[in-house]
């Protein structure tokens, strides 16, 4: 802001000089823009609304593509968030667009906790970014930012007022994300009803202290248009991806027997205003607000919770250093303890295994001994039997020798010896 620069000048006693010629640093914004083009942009939108209210259709219409979403069922047991990332390109600008959808919002009988998953999701994205920022080695300039920059809250077109679910959810979210309320399916409301509806909604929001996103009016170039648009909130939108011929052009429209609602006709609905504000005029501001306001708030709360403190400037670096040191030591201590534990466990396991193995060894030994003994036994028995056999054989031989001698001596009496031989043979 020119004002802040002047203020700084006064504070720091800096002089303002005039240049004697063309230096060339007016190319600085161009250099910056070129770098950004090379890096690419990212934008994350959260769509909150009941099932069937037209969130996916509106996204398709806004970004003029088809995001290939299957319609969700009405039977979800709880609210869950589905995030899908797309890479869009227009002329030389690459945009990484993430659309987060709330599936099952407003479908349950008990909707007490419907807002909780949404809040948790938003906080989770802040947490991831905070972790990255606090890392020692970090790559912030290449980091894919998943923090939600804008939240489109789809209001059911009852024509009366906001539902209590809407109020509760928006109240919980207004300090975490930029909320832009839109009236969905605006072709069901007549012009006069719409006017009354809008007034009622805005007054309810104000009386309940819900802080929705206000388009910034501090920059002269866009102050006027933003101020006008602020008066048209919430935008009454109609989405459609079907094209019909009106006059001699193809336009996006919804066809009814009684007429055609043209999406891009400002008399029919506020779609063009929404697109203008969301994308063409304030995208950068939405991202800045997310980072400078919502993220900083989250960061502050988180750090204070963790025990960091901002004391007076003198001791600040030390207290931070000490806290860092303390945390580091704690962490190291934790690691060491874990290491010890694991080592103990390892030692114990080794001991157990050793014991087991020893047991097994002993068993094997015993078996071996037993087998050996059996073997010895058997061997002994065999020896015995053999000895017996040998004895018998020697007795037989002696008898045989004696018999032969008798045979030779008693040749005359052959038959009896034969008989004796026969007997002997039979005997053997």
């Amino acid at each position, binding site marked *: 802001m*020119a004002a802040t*620069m002047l203020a700084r000048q006064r504070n*720091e006693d*800096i*002089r*303002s*000089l*005039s*240049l*004697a*010629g*063309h*230096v060339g*640093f007016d190319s*600085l*914004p161009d250099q910056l*823009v070129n*770098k950004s083009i*090379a890096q690419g942009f990212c934008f994350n939108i959260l769509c909150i609304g009941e099932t069937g209210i037209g969130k996916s259709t509106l996204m398709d219409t806004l*970004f*003029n593509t088809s995001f290939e979403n299957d319609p969700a069922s009405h039977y979800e*047991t*709880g609210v*869950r*968030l*589905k*995030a*899908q990332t*797309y*890479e*869009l*390109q*227009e*002329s030389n*600008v690459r945009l990484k667009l993430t659309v987060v959808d709330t599936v099952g919002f407003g479908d349950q009988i008990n909707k007490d906790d419907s807002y909780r*998953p949404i809040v*948790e999701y938003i906080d989770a994205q802040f947490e991831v970014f905070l972790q990255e920022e606090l890392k*020692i080695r970090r790559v*912030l300039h290449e980091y894919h930012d998943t923090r939600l920059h804008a939240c489109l809250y789809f209001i059911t077109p009852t024509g009366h007022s906001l539902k209590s679910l809407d109020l509760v959810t928006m109240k919980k979210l207004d300090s975490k994300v930029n909320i832009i309320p839109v009236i969905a399916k605006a072709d069901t409301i007549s012009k006069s009803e719409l006017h009354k509806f809008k007034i009622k909604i805005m007054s309810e929001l104000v009386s309940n202290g819900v802080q929705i996103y206000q388009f910034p009016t501090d*920059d002269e*170039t866009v102050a006027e248009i933003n101020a006008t648009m602020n008066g048209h909130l919430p935008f009454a939108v109609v989405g459609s991806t079907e094209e019909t011929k009106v006059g001699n*052009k193809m336009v996006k429209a919804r066809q009814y027997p009684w007429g055609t609602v043209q999406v*891009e006709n400002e008399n029919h609905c506020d779609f063009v205003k929404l*697109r203008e504000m969301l*994308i063409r*005029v*304030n*995208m*950068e*501001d939405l991202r800045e607000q997310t980072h*400078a306001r919502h993220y*900083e708030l989250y960061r*502050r709360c988180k*750090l*204070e919770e963790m025990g*960091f403190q*901002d004391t007076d400037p003198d001791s600040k*670096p030390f207290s*931070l250093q000490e806290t*860092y040191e303390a945390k580091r030591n704690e962490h190291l201590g934790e690691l060491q303890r874990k290491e010890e534990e694991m080592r103990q466990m390892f030692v114990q396991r080794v001991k157990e295994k050793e014991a087991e193995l020893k047991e097994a060894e002993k068993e094997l030994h015993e078996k071996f001994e037993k087998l050996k003994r059996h073997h010895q036994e058997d061997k002994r028995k065999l020896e015995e039997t053999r000895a017996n056999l040998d004895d018998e054989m020697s007795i037989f031989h002696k008898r045989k020798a004696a018999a032969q001698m008798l045979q030779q001596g008693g040749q005359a009496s052959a038959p009896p010896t034969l008989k004796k031989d026969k007997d002997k043979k039979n005997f053997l």
Partner: protein
Amino acid sequence: MSDTVPDSRPRPVLSAKSGTDTFGYVGIDAVLEQMRRKAMKQGFEFNIMVVGQSGLGKSTLINTLFKAQVSRKSCNPNNEEKIPKTVEIKSVSHVIEEKGVKMKLSVIDTPGFGDQINNCNCWEPVLRHINHQYEAYLCEEVNINRKKCIPDSRVHCCVYFIPPTGHSLRILDIEFMKRLCKVVNIVPVIAKADTLTLEERATFKKKIKEDLVLNGIDIYPQKEFDEDADDKVVNDRIRDLLPFAVVGSDKDYQVNGRKTLGRKTNWGIVEVENVSHCEFSHLRELLIRTHTQDLKEVTSCIHYESYRVTRLTKGNPQAASVPTANGED
């Protein structure tokens, strides 16, 4: 129960139909205009440090670069120029504007550098100053209640003046650059280049480049940070010309009917902005017109980050002030 299902399957690139007809136009590229507006509103900051012996023409060169009396000498014209006993760090800031673009320019001068008989450790005050700026930024960044726009006093570029001996780099030059090339972007220039003929200039440059490679000194633009092929081509061309042989002057003379900055001598007028006379224009292109943003980015994404890593792992500001030969860890 609730659960989040981040579905990050890579999707095919859907191109929004671009074109002049509003029917298919989404308007994503309007974000460039928004960014430009934001930048113009915020203004830019640039901090440049000049290092070199006294008498090499540092103040004149800075005045010539920015076409305004931005140097320290111009701010205190009545001061007797006494060479200080130790290296001092003097910083002067100005806000200059051109075509709606506001820039806060800070010039950090180092009187006394290399002027003593014993120049041991004359780089220490410089190193300390640079690390002090990093420290200040880190403290701001680490605060719980942070400012929306942290004032950036980190040194984005250090222009080192090499005396035109024509031989090679002196030991002082090598020692200084070795220690500082990992901490800040160094752009070496040959000062008072009108004392060298073109052949002497070419030999001198060649010798300097050899010396730099021999001692492992990585000057800006560093080869490892070239992002893509286009960058490489552009930066290679610059690296060929480095170090720039410059002449500074804030006096105008008539040459061929035009008024240009130059130095008048008995044998002719050295035109500062004439590419065949000296390389001042190239230096100005590099510093101001093409690589300013890149200088700032390398400082903040690489030098500052490595300071931060050292500081957070060692936990002691003194430990980080003397970078080891290997950098971190």
